[in-house]
């Protein structure tokens, strides 16, 4: 029969075996089968019922709600690998290695400490959501002087300089063909100086190497003055 492992952060606190035909209650009061002593947990918070071969988690109209894999639920059929979050504690629902879960949707629980690849419909949908979020996050350079309109920072590396091949073309004395680049990195946008006697400035400070761009920073390169605006 499957088990529920009670965890707080990374620490395992307790282990509860589920029985066919038996119900378990979860809450702060001592009358519960699984007691979580935390003010964020309601007296009678949730219960797990055995229904046929499956187990059903039901939230008992708790004040702070019950979550399964980060989704708020009122009732949920538990699958191997599900993580129930109640307050700051979590309960991991899992089947034994030699046990076959009742439905095919259940996540296989064996060999999980090996590196492996996941490929499910649900995950594809999640990735699509992530991509969508990224797409809307393209930041822009908005010209204040020396140009017009907005330039979307749609490329991984945007070149700014005198050369016509640059993504953002600016004029000015002693400005480099490619004066600076703006690079999109996992944690933000960075402006780096590349070449030319006249160096770029961010918020009136000369950039000698590279600097992370923050929302509404003012960038000056030659005759061009623009503002960095984060979108998303």
């Amino acid at each position, binding site marked *: 029969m499957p088990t529920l492992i009670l965890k707080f952060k990374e620490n395992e606190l307790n282990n509860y075996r589920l029985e066919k035909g038996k119900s378990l209650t979860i809450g702060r009061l001592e009358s519960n089968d699984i007691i979580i002593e935390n003010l964020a947990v309601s007296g009678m918070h949730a219960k797990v019922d055995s229904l046929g071969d499956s187990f059903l988690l039901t939230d008992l109209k708790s004040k702070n709600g019950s979550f399964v894999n980060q989704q708020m639920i009122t009732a949920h059929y538990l699958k191997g690998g599900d993580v129930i979050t109640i307050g700051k504690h979590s309960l991991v629902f899992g089947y034994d290695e030699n046990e076959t879960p009742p439905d095919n949707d259940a996540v296989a629980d064996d060999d*999980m400490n090996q590196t492996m*690849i*996941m490929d499910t419909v649900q995950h594809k949908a999640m990735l699509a959501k992530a991509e969508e979020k990224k797409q809307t996050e393209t930041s822009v350079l908005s010209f204040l002087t020396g140009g017009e309109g907005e330039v979307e920072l749609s490329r991984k590396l945007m070149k700014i300089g005198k050369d016509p091949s640059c993504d953002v073309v600016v004029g000015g004395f002693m400005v480099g063909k490619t004066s600076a680049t703006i690079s999109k990195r996992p944690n933000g946008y960075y402006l780096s100086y590349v070449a030319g006697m006249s160096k770029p400035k961010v918020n009136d400070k000369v950039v000698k190497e590279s600097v992370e761009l923050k929302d509404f920073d003012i960038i000056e390169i030659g005759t061009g003055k623009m503002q960095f605006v984060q979108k998303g």
Partner: protein
Amino acid sequence: MIIIESAGITDIGQNRKGNEDNFFVDDGMMLYMVADGMGGHQAGEVASELIVDNIRDYMIRFNESMEVEDPLDFLTRDANRLFASITFANHEVYQVSKSKDSLAGMGTTLSAVYCSDKTMIAANVGDSPIYLVHDGKIELLSETHTIMAEQIALGQEGSGLMGDKFKHMLTRAIGVGEDVKPYICEFQIFKGDTLIICSDGLSNKVLPEEINSVIKMERPEKACKILVDMANERGGEDNITVVVLRVKKVFGNNRVMKLLYKLIKAVWPHPVKLSRQ
């Protein structure tokens, strides 16, 4: 033009029977890679070696005048070249995995750094991190393609509670499908900047800040050894691979220096390559 001092080590660790990691270091090509293979019966080893060899061969064959077919418009020419080499090599690995039953389902991560004369390009598939140390600060340049990391990126609350089993579950890998989409990051580098590419055998054991402090103190070769020792002392459950490259010099448009450097390279072409089992 950029001059780089580099080193790389792969180590079997304390628990594993084989080493499924592979790496590649070449200061002449300015190409650096780490691959962490997966799949039983030595298949992981095959996958990680195949990807590294295929990317190297693609980058050698691809001469300066050639252009990538269907380049992506959000990448520069050199980044497109690296991108194409990875998608091409992925295809090769996938074909091999289908050709033999014993190799079915093999896969590998790949993290690569390629230096063109103007910029540095970092590309990755999977969870082998690429770090940049600039001005004393360490920063992750790769995207972590695991369920947990993506949940956190999506801002899902309580992602940290998901437990260990999701830590190693990859959402992208080389050799498991016809196509793969590497994450690419292009950036400017400066004298003294250091890049570290490693397998999770290191990053699960040694924190970025600890890597940073080792990098600050030691030259690449010594730093690699110290980092591998640290991971082994802390259990070394997985294979451990580290590649460290330090930017020694960045020439602007100094033609004389470029020529001089090319001459030296012609006389002394040996890249630094270390291997320890």
